[in-house]
């Protein structure tokens, strides 16, 4: 896998090539390929998340909300918001005087999220926008908080996406990136690898009848920058007071950065 990581790193240097899991693909193709994956899993996304993480993803998301510092009247962008787990809570916290925008590049995911939140009675202060994280269609200095949970690793140009988030964030605003990362213990790392490459695709086949998409999810996690690299990427686009917090032994990390 180290070989593949090295290949990926060298691939990043080629302007037109990027990774799609362990495969090398043309940058223009990646967005469509990722879109296909999420079109395929959208309907069973929540169930699969619960099964794959034994429900722990709810704790990771709750911790993200606890760290958001968001208040009534604020404007929040939940990027790659998928089925709206974070947006539902933010909508209640910002109250009627605030606004939440649930954005996702994938129309199917956005529609699943919209239906779910509407059924929960969450309407009024929430809007749905199909948007590419690399070129956000919002004015400069617009949001108090931006969150992106388990979405950044699917973005083709992560630095461009982070720069775009920096642009639309208000001075004093914060970015929270919740994403799979690198386990801090060797033993955990081996167990996690075995689970991701052997158990996860089979579960995908069993529950969502889609082994390939879940194989891609496992591969894309390995190709995602580790904690320190992502922190550096955030600093490179202008974020200050950056930090990260490992969750579940580094399987997931919450990165935080401010715009001043």
């Amino acid at each position: 896998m180290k070989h593949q990581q090295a290949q990926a790193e060298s691939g990043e240097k080629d302007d037109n090539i990027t990774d799609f899991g362990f495969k090398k693909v043309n940058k223009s193709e990646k967005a469509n390929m990722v879109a296909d994956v999420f079109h395929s899993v959208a309907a069973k996304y929540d169930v699969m998340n619960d099964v794959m993480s034994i429900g722990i993803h709810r704790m990771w998301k709750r911790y993200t909300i606890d760290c958001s510092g968001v208040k009534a009247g604020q404007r929040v962008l939940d990027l790659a918001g998928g089925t709206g787990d974070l947006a539902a809570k933010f909508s209640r916290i910002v109250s009627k005087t605030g606004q939440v925008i649930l954005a996702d590049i994938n129309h199917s995911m956005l529609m699943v999220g919209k239906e779910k939140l509407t059924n929960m009675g969450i309407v009024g202060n929430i809007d749905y926008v199909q948007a590419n994280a690399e070129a956000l269609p919002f004015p400069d200095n617009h949001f108090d908080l931006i969150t992106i949970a388990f979405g950044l690793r699917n973005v083709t140009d992560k630095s461009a996406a982070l720069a775009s988030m920096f642009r639309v964030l208000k001075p004093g605003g914060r970015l929270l990136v919740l994403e799979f990362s690198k386990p801090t213990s060797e033993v955990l790392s081996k167990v996690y690898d075995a689970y991701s490459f052997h158990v996860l695709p089979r579960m995908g086949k069993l529950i969502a009848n889609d082994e390939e998409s879940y194989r891609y999810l496992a591969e894309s996690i390995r190709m995602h920058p580790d904690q320190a690299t992502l922190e550096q990427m955030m600093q490179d686009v202008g974020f200050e007071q950056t930090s990260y917090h490992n969750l579940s032994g580094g399987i997931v990390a919450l990165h935080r950065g401010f715009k001043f």
Partner: protein
Amino acid sequence: MRSNSSSSAISGISSLLGSLIETSVNQAIRVSVNGQDLIEPLEDKRCILFIQELEQTLAFQFSNTISPQKTHYVDVLFLSPLDQNDISSLSQNECYVSISLFALSELKDTSKLTKLIKEDKLDFYGDLGILQKVSKVFSSIEFDLEETLSAYIGDAGAYNVLEKSKAFGEFAQKQHQLFMQTLSDAALEEKPIAVRPIMVANFVDEVRALKTDAERLEAKLNRYLERTCKDREVGKSEESQGTRSRKS
């Protein structure tokens, strides 16, 4: 925020705890008779609670969902500790309470809030009305178990379950009393490791009699002392009069 495994575990525990509190509070409000009415005045309000011993900050955020039923919801968040700037910039919809874990139960009594503030058991900032309303939610919430159960198992089922629960409760109480009685008899009769009530009463009577005797003796001694003092004073005055008459 670069973290080690212990802080990761702590964040996991706080998230789990927050989730448990939130689920319990909302479930209680949902099944109660008056929960929705009690939290309606708290819509869009936030009550931040700092528990001194645990050094944890909990925020209760009250909101409603715009559904046909307009159900109210409480979000529970574990915040990072607020500094003086955060506290001084509280909005009119927020209140901040710093309180000891052991005084938490006293928050249920709204009439005690001012007393607690005066006694420095509670630091408070923001709108006191919010705290009073939150306090009222926890003290005035009422449950109709039969009504709640009937939604799941029907009226007859709920009635039967509650009747059987009551009967079981009474049976359990009787069994408990019987067990305590048996335990008490065993301690007194079979293994005399405890003193019988009659012996305690007898001992108390003896102590009381001794106390009365001692008091009587004390009173007698006091009288003797007074009398001795008086006699001594009379003797002295007679002596001085005799000396004066001899001189003249």
